[in-house]
């Protein structure tokens, strides 16, 4: 069972994102990058599948920000091989471009499953997994919360999330691409001492990908929502605010 995981570095919202002077892109100097949360789940699910099926997990990530940290963490967690993909691009590619690059990288390689997070916070033009499946003519299911490999290794049974707590159980013939929403258990912890050891002794391979001709998404401008636009802001001491809120509730007969 050979599993590929596509990991994307995204801006860390804790550090905030600022718009650059041109107004059409995010200011790269303001950003610190971390692994996209649902990709972390994709990696965790891949590792769980590897443990159950004696498989092999390879992680690919486009060069962006502190990607070596992310890839070394994946190694420390149990990935068999990690690859940083160099693109030579000045700015991070959109998902269509990234998917085309990964498609040419993975085409012809014997992966049974490609797992990636169902969405990343900076997605604008669809999700990487779905696009990749389209370019590789593979089946795709997104919003997955559980994956089970069949005994003959030819199919997987997945649970796909729906609103209201519903889920659909689907069977998918391999090879396939899956968009992971949540792994079956929270992403595992790596003790820092182990991570530091892997950073010294582990291997992060590098591969080159040639970007396809660009058809970028035409972002005209980026803007922040007006602060509090929509909400009438209440202020004062906690007691004063409480009184204001309770007045609102009382007006609407919400107090018993």
């Amino acid at each position, binding site marked *: 069972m050979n599993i590929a995981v596509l990991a994307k570095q995204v801006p860390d919202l804790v550090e905030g*994102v600022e718009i650059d002077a041109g107004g059409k892109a995010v200011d790269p100097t303001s950003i610190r990058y971390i692994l996209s949360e649902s990709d972390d789940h994709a990696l965790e699910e891949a590792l769980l599948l590897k443990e159950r099926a004696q498989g092999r997990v390879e992680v690919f990530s486009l060069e962006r920000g502190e990607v070596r940290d992310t890839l070394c963490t994946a190694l420390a967690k149990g990935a068999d091989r990690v690859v940083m993909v160099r693109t030579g691009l000045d700015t991070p590619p959109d998902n269509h471009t990234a998917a085309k690059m990964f498609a040419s990288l993975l085409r012809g390689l014997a992966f049974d499953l490609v797992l990636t997070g169902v969405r990343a*916070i*900076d*997605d*604008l*033009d*669809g*999700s990487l*997994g*779905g*696009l990749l499946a*389209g370019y590789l*003519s593979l*089946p*795709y*299911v997104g*919003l997955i919360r559980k994956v089970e490999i069949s005994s003959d290794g030819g199919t997987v049974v997945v*649970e*796909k*999330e729906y*609103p209201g*707590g*519903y*889920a*659909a*159980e*689907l*069977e*998918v013939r391999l090879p*396939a691409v899956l968009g992971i*929403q949540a792994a079956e258990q929270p992403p595992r912890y790596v003790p820092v001492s182990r991570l530091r050891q892997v950073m010294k002794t582990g291997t992060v391979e590098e591969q080159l990908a040639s970007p396809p001709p660009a058809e970028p*998404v*035409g*972002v*005209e*401008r*980026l*803007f*922040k*929502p*007006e*602060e*509090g636009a*929509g*909400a*009438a*802001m*209440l202020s004062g001491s*906690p*007691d004063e*605010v*409480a009184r204001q*809120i*309770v007045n*609102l509730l*009382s007006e*609407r007969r*919400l*107090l*018993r």
Partner: protein
Amino acid sequence: MANNVLVLAEHFQGHVTDITFELLGKARELAPALGGSVGVALLGHDVGGLVSKLGAAAVVYAADRPELREFTPDAYAAVLGIAVAHASPRVVLLGSTSVGLDLLSLLSARVNLPCIDNCTAIKFQDGGLVATSQIYGGKLFAEVLLTQRTTLIAVAPGMFPAEAGRVSGKPQVVQIPHALVAPEPRTSFRRWIEPPPGDVDITKVPVLVSIGRGIKNAENVPQAQELADLLGGAVSGSRPVIDQGWLPKTRQVGKSGMTVKPKLYLALGVSGAPEHVEGMRGAELIVAINTDPQAPIFSVAHYGVVADVFDILPSLTEEIKARQDTSAA
């Protein structure tokens, strides 16, 4: 000339879902300005009875086959691709949902058409069409100028009024030619997994005290419960709170949880990411408390307080008790 608008209809357990009407309403607004008409793609099995609900459209592109009874991305993408080719739309509108999200990317790559996700607004500007998308958990918006090619757009639920799309009528029905080349689908539906019977159905409760990561840890849930009890409501939460195990899944509000429309929605320490807001924006009165003045929740709340939940909560609880005591006296 591609100037029509094609909407993908979604249905669940025999009913057309709200997102479909929201998209149809928007389509009705866009199509005339484009000089085209509204088409809707209806895929499923034994869904003929739903056609009359789709009166907002001029044409229904239908594919009614056993293998389409339940949504599977592969089969639906193949059929929808044919429908798109027939409908010559300027834009294809899908919901940013469990169905629409899979189809958006899969189809975009297969038929080589551009796509945009998380859309919150579509308008004409300077002679072109501009779609606005919400990114970075709602902290930023991007305005995208559509190219001349047919564009697939996934719209966040709850963005457009459903009323505008609820029109009965008799649209023309066109059968989508049989598309499937592969004899067997690579993806098959096995069964629905129902949510476990919950303690409280948060969709039926008039007041929700909803907690987000801002309440810091599970120890603080009882304070929210106390407030909910005083107001005759229940405690609900955003996805991170459920993932952390502080509340059961039945209390989740948002994309893969419940959509709620209570009389009062108190958002405590909830940042207001789109996946959450989608589930509660219809509440009658939304009051949000958050330490971050730029929290997206303030864009959807009616009233907001920039403060620590634990500064306000005790005062709020006291004030309610006092007010209820005096009214009882």
